């Protein structure tokens, strides 16, 4: 039964990966036209800090799966780090919007906010799932939700590399 649930999650994540693939592809396709705005708008250092939080949360999630006795503690750490990333990046997006880069203005804002917004939504769903897991205490579901959480982290590595690192390095 557990294998079936894992397979179901794996198949969902494969389709979701294709969805993200095309969003990232759209950003890459329009990158040349939006590079100047991206370089002026994005803040690599701030986002790198929040990225470190999200990547660390994958490690704490792994600990939650690997050590059932301290599962609740590590789930709490994972949720906290996820919320820190969500609030941190959310504040960063608000700063960009306040700078006058609205979602309907130009290629950069459209492709960037679509990508960032869809990832943010995935992250929010992940935080809710982890919170439910913490309250309900179903240890069997931990591994499956961990797959989702790792996926959110891996997708962010791709977004961070393409949108941020490629712009500044």
């Amino acid at each position, binding site marked *: 039964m557990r*294998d079936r649930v*894992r*397979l179901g999650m*794996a198949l969902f*994540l*494969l389709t979701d*990966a294709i969805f993200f*693939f095309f969003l*990232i*592809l759209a950003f*890459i*396709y329009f*990158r*040349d036209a939006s590079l100047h705005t991206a370089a002026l708008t994005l803040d690599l250092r701030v986002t790198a800090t929040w990225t470190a939080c999200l990547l660390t949360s994958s490690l704490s999630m792994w600990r939650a799966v690997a050590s059932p006795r301290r599962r609740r503690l590590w789930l709490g750490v994972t949720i906290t780090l996820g919320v820190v990333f969500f609030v941190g990046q959310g504040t960063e997006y608000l700063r960009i919007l306040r700078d006058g880069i609205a979602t309907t203005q130009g290629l950069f804002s459209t492709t960037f906010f679509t990508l960032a917004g869809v990832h943010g939504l995935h992250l929010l769903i992940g935080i809710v799932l982890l919170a439910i897991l913490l309250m309900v205490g179903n240890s069997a579901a931990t591994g499956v939700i961990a797959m989702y959480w790792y996926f959110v982290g*891996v997708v962010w590595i*791709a977004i961070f590399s*393409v949108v941020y690192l*490629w712009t500044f*390095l």
Partner: protein
Amino acid sequence: MTNLLTTGWDWEPSVVAGCAALAITYLAAMRRQFSRRMLYFFGGVLLLLLDLVSPIDALADGYLFSAHIVQHFLLALVIPPLLLLGLPSLDMRLSAPMPAFVPWTLGVGTMLIWHVPVFFNAALANDALHIFQHLSFLATGVIFWWPVLGPVDSDRLPAVVAVPYLFAACTACSLLGAAITFSSPGLYPAYLHPDDRLGILPLIRDGWGLTARDDQQLGGLLMWVPGCFVYLSAILATASRWYRTAEA
């Protein structure tokens, strides 16, 4: 064209010696017992030799980015699977299996990092670094494919892990290919105005109609489409093996 095919060969002694050493070691280990597996292994060795001494190498080093991508594609995605398929299956466990993210990160990370323009251009300008680049593609290629096609059954990933493992690599490779394809020409400046040592630049530009822009786009597409095709083939093979096991 004739000039390219006749003068474009570079029988670099270290490459020839390395390929010969691979073949001799394999023959000695197999104790001259011929089997179909040998075809895979020697196919891999022959392809390795051709990849590094044939006109592909001459084009890759001095003229065409797309030829360089073909070279890297063979080194990382075609030759390692052939070498691994040529090894006899082993029942013993050589070591504790690595977590899947380690070979994945090594294989895909090598592919991504070496195509970042600053590293790629540095390797083009420095022979020692270029050799290291090729060796790293081959070595990390073998490490990447080991959990999928390696000879130790206990080291192989279960299908439910192997498929996402390959799919994620395919996605990363595609994004890299797309990034190169859609970028302005000049990511790798050496190919904008090649030093025409073999006198074949008019053939490339006028005869084949390959401008620097076309060349870069072709290179990106080669990484994107045929690269993904290799991963997709491995996914289909893994899924097929899984279904057979499930039925048994």
